[in-house]
């Protein structure tokens, strides 16, 4: 190459580069795309197909396509299971929010700054232990002869047999997902512009009014994100209802498990239930994105 004698016109370079412009995005996105296609899209389509074969059992001949599996879900007993799953999810999400917000608020705005990271790590630590072990720990705490009842009776309060009840499921779910709630709320509250709180106080707002009119709306995207994440996780949680709920707490993921790995092996019905769960979770995620979007607009 002798650039001095034969300078290459820049347009030639541009022309050569132009067709490759699509290459960058493709190269960057292809691995994740293939991954998603193989491990998310195709399996989901497979589940969808199986869900459309009524009465499908593995190893047995099946009839044609139909909506039988979905109609089966409409039976009261299964609607109750779905209702129970929603109740677990909504209830534990609210509990997480009510318990988590003050903690996150204190951590983000009030705690001594130099201890803050340590405190945060301390609170998030449970995330790093196995959810199975944590649920087991709660069976030990909640069983009639467990730590919880020992405490109650020591205080002169009546003992409670909460293990294998929905109460235990609420406790277990709240405990499991509280750290997520706190972590997300903390991130949101930490970004809160405290000058806005001063401005509100300056305009006559009491601390309580400032909280409801400024802090909460300002952190609403965080509240929504944290709540929806916890909602999605609790809606489809399997471990806690199984270990702590006993016979009282059949929820949708346990029901799905039983269709695939239980005695009935009703893969068609199980797939239909899975589609319902996938739909519910997708809906929640759509809400999350939409909510997030509107807030980014007003934020920007």
């Amino acid at each position, binding site marked *: 190459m002798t650039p001095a004698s034969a300078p290459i016109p820049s347009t030639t370079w541009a022309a050569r580069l132009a067709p490759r412009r699509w290459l960058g995005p493709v190269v960057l996105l292809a691995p994740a795309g293939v991954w998603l296609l193989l491990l998310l899209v195709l399996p989901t389509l497979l589940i969808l197909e199986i869900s459309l074969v009524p009465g499908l059992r593995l190893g047995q001949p099946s009839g044609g396509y139909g909506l039988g599996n979905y109609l089966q879900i409409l039976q009261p007993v299964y609607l109750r299971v779905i209702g129970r799953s929603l109740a677990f999810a909504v209830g534990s999400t609210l509990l997480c929010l009510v318990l988590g917000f003050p903690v996150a608020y204190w951590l983000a705005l009030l705690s001594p700054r130099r201890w803050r990271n340590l405190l945060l790590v301390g609170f998030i630590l449970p995330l790093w232990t196995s959810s199975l072990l944590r649920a087991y720990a709660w069976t030990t705490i909640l069983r009639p002869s467990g730590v919880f009842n020992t405490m109650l009776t020591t205080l002169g309060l009546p003992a409670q047999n909460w293990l294998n009840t929905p109460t235990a499921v609420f406790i277990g779910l709240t405990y499991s997902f509280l750290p997520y709630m706190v972590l997300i709320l903390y991130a949101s509250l930490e970004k809160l512009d405290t000058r806005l709180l001063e401005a*509100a106080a300056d305009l006559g707002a009491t601390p309580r009014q400032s909280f409801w009119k400024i802090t909460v709306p300002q952190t609403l995207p965080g509240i929504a994100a944290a709540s929806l994440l916890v909602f999605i996780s609790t809606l489809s949680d399997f471990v806690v209802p199984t270990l702590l709920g006993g016979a009282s707490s059949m929820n949708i993921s346990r029901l799905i498990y039983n269709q695939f790995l239980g005695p009935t092996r009703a893969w068609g019905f199980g797939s239909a239930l899975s589609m319902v769960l996938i739909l519910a979770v997708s809906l929640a995620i759509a809400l999350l994105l939409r909510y997030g979007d509107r807030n980014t607009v007003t934020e920007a």
Partner: protein
Amino acid sequence: MAQTVRAATAAAVTQTQPDVELRQVFKTFGADLAVRQLDLAVQPGEFFSILGPSGCGKTTTLRLIAGFETPTAGDVLIQGANVSAVPAHRRPVNTVFQSYALFDHMTVKDNIAFGLKIRHLAAAQVRDRVGDALRLVRLEPMANRYPAQLSGGQQQRVALARALVNRPAVMLLDEPLGALDQKLRKQMQVELTTLHRQLGITFIMVTHDQEEALALSDRIAVMNNGQIEQIGTPSDIYDRPHTPFVADFIGDTNLLPGRIDEAHPAQVRVTTESGLRVLARAGNMSSNQAVVVSVRPEKINLSLGAAGGNGNCYQGQVSHLMYLGTHLHCIVRLSSGESLTVRQPNRADTPIAVDTPVYVHWAADDCLALEAA
């Protein structure tokens, strides 16, 4: 509550009672003394500025008045009532924040209505007053926009309206124009003075911009190191600074440290450290006192020949020269060794260039001997 504070004090009000008064106020943050021994009184209707370099305690002072800080010692009084222990939301003052601190999740209208709604005013009244405020700051078309959709100047006016609409006894302004560009700043300065005249309420403004303070204020407090150096009208501050710091901070000046040889009433003769003998205006001072002579660049005249008269006249040489259009900015090195900054009108009668030998001279009344710090 703000109303009751005002009502309670209204009865006791005398014509001369200040709107805001600080008495011997100290404020420490840990080991740092942010303000000390602050005494100031702001009269009703005044446009009062607190001026100083960053870190001088001026913003802390404003926050003490607003109620975001409580004094470590001393008292804060608003309209005669001691509010030292009263939280911010119960003080009859409103603040325009340096960053505006607009509520970005609310429209312009809702931002302005915030204080009124908090006080549970009737909806119709809120609507009327918000409408008035919007008109006052000329933002009616923007009522339903969000702060993020406004320009800096518009946001600034929303911040003003949000404070004004509450009809506070005192408006506090924390570097209100600091975030605006030069041109908008000039325009908003005019708007601020207009508003102040229209509303007739007390304005207390914190600024580090001496020009802004001079242009807008009835009186200025100059702060340094947590203390007030001087309180006075703009011309007091500029023409009759009490301390070398004030002289230096407000406008440009040349400071020549020295000692008084002869003290007369209103005039002294000073020998500077380099041996220059200077006649200067002064208050009650005695011989042998350490002083600093301040002479402003625009009061110094340059000429090619020695000037007569009884003023101060010294020989020197131009060492630097900057052409600034309306005038020339020169640094003249005197034969005694000192350098003086001189601002010379851009006229044809004094053709000077670097290295030109010149004489500098000024009247005794145009320079001031200040007690050395």
